[in-house]
């Protein structure tokens, strides 16, 4: 088993998804790289057995969200810098507005909004990934949607 090749393939395959998850939670590109790197470190250390690619992806997302949560709580983080570079990849002003509104939601809500609408996970899957009850997922989804509707009016 070539671990170097395995980890390279995993980074190529999943780093884009993990980047999006982490940028939504952390809103800071410098912390995002640390979070992604730590996620792959755990991947190397734990070496879990996966049923399939979906299982592997969900595991990585779960680890990344836990790492991001711990970073928010416990680490000396980077000063909050603007995400202009991320915004600048979006062509239309209204899309920049949507991104800004998403990132202004409370962390718990925007995480669930992202996992549902962008990654396509259903309530039960999101509950498993985040380690919370299905009812909590539904509440966060509902509140996030309502708040975004209000913010964009």
């Amino acid at each position, binding site marked *: 088993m070539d*671990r*170097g090749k395995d*980890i*390279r393939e995993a*980074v*190529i395959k999943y*780093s*884009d998804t*993990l*980047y*999006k998850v982490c*940028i*939504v939670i952390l809103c800071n*590109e*410098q912390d*995002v*790289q*640390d*979070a*992604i*790197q*730590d996620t*792959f*470190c*755990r991947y*190397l*250390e734990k070496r879990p057995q996966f049923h399939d690619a979906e299982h592997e992806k969900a595991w990585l997302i779960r680890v990344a969200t836990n*790492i991001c949560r*711990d*970073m928010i*709580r*416990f*680490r*000396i983080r*980077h*000063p*909050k*810098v603007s995400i202009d570079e*991320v915004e600048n*990849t*979006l*062509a239309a002003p209204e*899309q920049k507005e*949507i*991104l800004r*509104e*998403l990132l202004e939601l409370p962390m718990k809500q925007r995480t669930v*909004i*992202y996992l*549902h*609408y*962008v990654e396509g996970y259903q309530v039960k899957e999101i509950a498993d990934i985040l380690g919370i009850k299905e009812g909590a997922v539904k509440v966060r989804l509902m509140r996030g*949607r309502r708040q*975004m*509707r209000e913010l*964009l009016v």
Partner: protein
Amino acid sequence: MDGYEVKKVMDQIHISEKMKEDIIINMQNKVEGGKKRTWNVRRMAATAAAFVAAAGILSFPVRAAVSSLVKERMESVPKAQMTELNNMVQSQPVLADGFSREFTQKEWARFKELHQAYENGTFPEGVIAQADDAAAAPKGTLCYIRATSFFNLPAQEMTDEEMLQIIDFQNKMAYAVANGPQAKAAAAEQAAQNAQGK
């Protein structure tokens, strides 16, 4: 707003090739057993600036400088101990501390109060217990695992002393890294980039 508009927006956002490549290089170094740790240059500069280190990197907003009381405490730690702490952090495979359980709401509220008290000179009486690895760590008591940067927390709610020991140790690690040779090299690199107007 249709929630699916969020997907359309996020589908246009991607990790940069540079970040991806940096991650691949760092992970391959780890697999090959390399002890060198490639720090994000801007993160090291930010940490150094937070401790008002000699790097002189003040070209971006930083968090409030550490209090003079904390700085004095850090400077009173023997240099050999700081070097050892920096070397330990550099050799760890992770970049974020782990915790054996979540803080309770009460602990979290108290932890934030104690962070402030620490800045004002409230320091722990003792130092945190440490173990080289998980196998050597005593069960059920506060202990820091050096190999994995992991805090074993007691099952019961932590005392103020235990939380202050965590805060103190994290500050010492940050100070050790901010003043270590890798941080100085990173800060010099950042200064060169700033000078080029990047």
